């Protein structure tokens, strides 16, 4: 059966459609270095047996990953990662993280509460993610 | 489907087998002794010519057991109807398990057919065993009684119990099907079955075959077979003689009162002069009254009485007819079950 490399979860009320959540979780895993080129993604059956979601959702997510050039399906064998995302791992983004800490300090100083900071970040992040999608 | 029917019926089958085994043990153990006593008594009394007394004693000795045994065999079909018939479909509808059974790959018709056939045959077999046991066991006692036409006796001998069991089972099944609840179905089955068992011996059984009516002129020869006078209203009321000239084993259905030559019933006190003083066994008793003498006394009064009866030769034909009647009812009820089940389908 092979290594169980990644497990998915579904956030019911996130406003992001389920298949995109899966795509996002694969991309996140790639960024964190948990998945690399050649790794086999879990089969549709394995995913839905753990996370009670519609198999079509998983199929759609995998097709999207193929479309983004991140994975490829080998009939009868499975779906495999074809490339990594951004060669550097998260740990190497020290300067970016410093900038982020600075911004957080500014936000707190401006009087935002924790949920407020999170809301501001999430909506801005989503906006820019959607426009980045549209550009492609 | 046969497996499922058996599996659902298993507990009841085991209970039935246990009861039948106990009944067999009981009947065989007591019956062998009784049959032996009868044979011995019969041999000795024929020589001494006091068979009436000796055999009556034997009969009386087993009277309590006799009544109890008949009661059990008459109750058996009712119990079958209640415990095997009413839950057959009623329980499934009540608990919703029919939704499991009807959504496998067997049609509803087949489901019903196998259940009805399987448990129906088991019902008839159970009743058959009990009837066979009792008929064998009571053989000598029935001989002493002279006939098997008494209401409880007829209903518990030979083949009618099988037909009753089949009918009660079908009755229970359709009650469960229509009422969709086991307990109410049990109650309705019991009530209807008891009603029918009261109705049939009194209103239907006597008319299953044409009966015979014989008119007897009261004289010494006709009254020599009499065994009692039954008054219906004191000394000024009607009366009739019982036991008149009827062949051994006949089933007396009715008797007109004693009437004179103008077909008018006469009151009891009209023949007072011919009646002896009350014998040691009391009025109507057989032991002390010499009816032949009463007969010769009344001979010149031109009195007559008409008796309607079924001869003993009609016993088996009536058994068959009554069984047939109940089996026809069973078929009708079963057919109704099928019709009802199919009604809900497209």
């Amino acid at each position, binding site marked *: 059966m092979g290594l169980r490399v990644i497990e998915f979860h579904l956030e019911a009320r996130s406003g992001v459609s389920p298949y995109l959540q899966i795509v996002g979780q694969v991309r996140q895993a790639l960024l964190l270095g948990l998945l690399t080129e050649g790794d086999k993604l879990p089969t549709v059956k394995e995913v*839905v*047996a753990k996370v009670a979601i519609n198999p*079509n959702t998983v199929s759609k997510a995998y097709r999207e990953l193929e479309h983004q050039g991140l994975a490829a399906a080998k009939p009868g064998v499975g779906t495999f990662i074809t490339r990594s995302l951004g060669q550097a791992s998260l740990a190497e983004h020290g300067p970016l993280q410093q900038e982020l800490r600075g911004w957080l300090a500014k936000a707190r100083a401006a009087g935002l509460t924790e949920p407020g900071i999170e809301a501001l970040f999430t909506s801005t992040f989503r906006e820019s993610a959607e426009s980045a999608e549209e550009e492609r | 489907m046969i497996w499922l029917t058996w599996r*659902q019926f298993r507990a009841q089958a085991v209970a039935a087998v246990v009861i039948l085994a106990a009944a067999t043990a009981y009947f065989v153990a007591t019956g062998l002794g009784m049959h032996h006593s009868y044979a011995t008594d019969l041999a000795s009394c024929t020589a001494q010519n006091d068979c009436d007394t000796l055999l009556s004693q034997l009969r009386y000795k087993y009277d309590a057991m006799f009544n109890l045994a008949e009661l059990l065999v008459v109750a058996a079909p009712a119990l079958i109807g209640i415990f095997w018939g009413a839950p057959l479909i009623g329980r499934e509808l009540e608990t919703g398990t029919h939704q499991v059974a009807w*959504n*496998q790959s067997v049609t509803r018709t087949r489901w019903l057919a196998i259940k009805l056939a399987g448990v129906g045959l088991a019902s008839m077999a159970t009743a058959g065993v009990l009837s066979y046991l009792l008929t064998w066991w009571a053989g000598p006692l029935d001989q002493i009684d002279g006939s098997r036409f008494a209401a409880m006796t007829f209903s518990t001998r030979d083949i009618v119990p099988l037909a009753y069991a089949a009918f009660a089972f079908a009755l229970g099944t359709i009650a469960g099907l229509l009422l969709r609840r086991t307990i109410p179905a049990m109650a309705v089955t019991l009530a209807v079955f008891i009603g029918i068992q009261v109705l049939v011996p009194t209103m239907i059984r006597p008319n299953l075959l044409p009966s015979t009516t014989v008119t007897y002129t009261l004289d010494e020869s006709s009254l020599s077979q009499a065994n009692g006078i039954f008054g219906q209203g004191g000394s000024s009321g009607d009366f009739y003689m019982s036991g008149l000239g009827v062949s051994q084993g006949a089933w007396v259905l009715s008797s007109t009162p004693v009437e004179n030559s103008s077909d008018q019933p006469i009151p009891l006190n009209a023949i007072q002069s011919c009646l002896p003083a009350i014998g040691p066994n009391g009025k109507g008793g057989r032991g002390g009254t010499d009816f032949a003498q009463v007969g010769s006394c009344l001979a010149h009064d031109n009195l007559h009485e008409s008796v309607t009866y079924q001869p003993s030769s009609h016993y088996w034909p009536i058994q068959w007819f009554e069984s047939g009647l109940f089996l026809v009812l069973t078929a009708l009820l079963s057919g109704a079950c099928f019709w009802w089940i199919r009604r*809900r389908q*497209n």
Partner: protein
Amino acid sequence: MSAILHAQALGKRYGRRQALAECTLEIPPGHVVGLVGPNGAGKTTLLKIACGMLAPTSGRIEVLGEQPAADPTQLARIGYVAQDTPTYPNLSVADHLKLGAKLNPRWDAELAQARIEQLELDPKQKAGKLSGGQRAQLALTVAVAKRPELLILDEPVASLDPLARRSFLRHLMESVAENGTSVILSSHLVSDLERVCDYLVVLVSSRLQLAGETDDLLAQHYRIVCTRRKESDLPSDLEVIWAEHTDRQSTFVVRGDAEPPTGDWVADHLELEDLVLTYMERAADSGRRAKTLKTEDAR
């Protein structure tokens, strides 16, 4: 393959009560269909007609191209688990599997056995002694192991605790992934269905309100918030499903093929639960209005 369920003006009447009315529906294969609606809306009636337990009083229905429960072959193609997942209380788990094996020609004994082991059910345990969740899983196993093309489940998770609920759905999805079975499952809670359903049917007051692929429905509906205005002031190609007004503000739920043009409003998609609730409110409201009209007519 043709539709798994094709209903035309389907109706069921009990005396004076109309349990289901004018239901026209065509459900494509390969989906997990969520049938949602309040209690008494007619969900159970529709499902019972689909599996042949009830006969309709008007209209027509075809399931997998045939009349429901027409013959043993048709019965073999559809698995049904009724509300409260009935099982035979005095039959053991193993007995239930034997029941399935004896009564179904396409019974998959290995699949059934594997699932029982996976669920850690004791084969000798009588079904009456199992917990609600275990009974539901047993009933589902019996329905799935007969290898149906279509599974019909009536409120299968209604009486289950959250853990049992999740476990049930996981096993159901696993079966769907493995066998390609189509599923129709009903619930009066949208939250039960959101995770697993990709086709939605909304039934309220015995009438069909909405039917379609979940993604399409979510994409086609918008909530528009703007200053107070009339429905007719909105673009004409938007169908107004629901409108609510305060003194200053109007909120509309609209349906349209394309995205609404930018205007002096905020247009947003709805969550599935809100979408279903909107249609339910609409149905309840028109029911109230119909009743008021009736009483007014009577007067």
